[in-house]
């Protein structure tokens, strides 16, 4: 059970294309809003 993300450390930045195909950069949100990152279990 490796815990890659540690409390009270900077969240790793990343960039992905969103569901509309637009580029999304995590750092665009970070620093201005709280962010709830949800890692889903797959669509049912």
């Amino acid at each position: 059970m490796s815990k890659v993300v540690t409390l009270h450390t900077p969240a790793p930045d990343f960039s992905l294309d969103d569901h509309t195909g637009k580029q999304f950069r995590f750092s665009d949100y970070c620093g201005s809003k709280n962010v709830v990152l949800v890692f889903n279990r797959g669509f049912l």
Partner: protein
Amino acid sequence: MAQLRLDYSKFKAEDAEILVVGPESASQFAKYWDENDLPYPGLPDPKHSVLKRYGQEVNLFKLGRMPAQVIVDKHGMVRYVHYGKSMSDIPSNKELLSILTGLNKEHRDSSGLSSPLHLDMISKTEETREEAD
């Protein structure tokens, strides 16, 4: 994931954005988002680059990914991490919202110094205490 939509306005009120990351393809995401009319961004990660960096567990026996949630505050710091132990091990919206309320209060009260309040609350089960002199 769809449960989050029910309380989306409450998350907004806490100045929080929800981001959903998953291993499905861009077209599967587009279809699902279209069908369910989800108001927050969906981030397809078919190469698992972000999923791996954030340490989402994969249960090989159940052929599925364990759900995980991470809350990042306005300073870009990780303040809450929950790795599901089973497919249904997902914190309630209420629990997530109360953490956000705490973060916002702290953000208003302090000049940016983070308090150990949530660390203590959240990681008590993982903590190992050592006596140091």
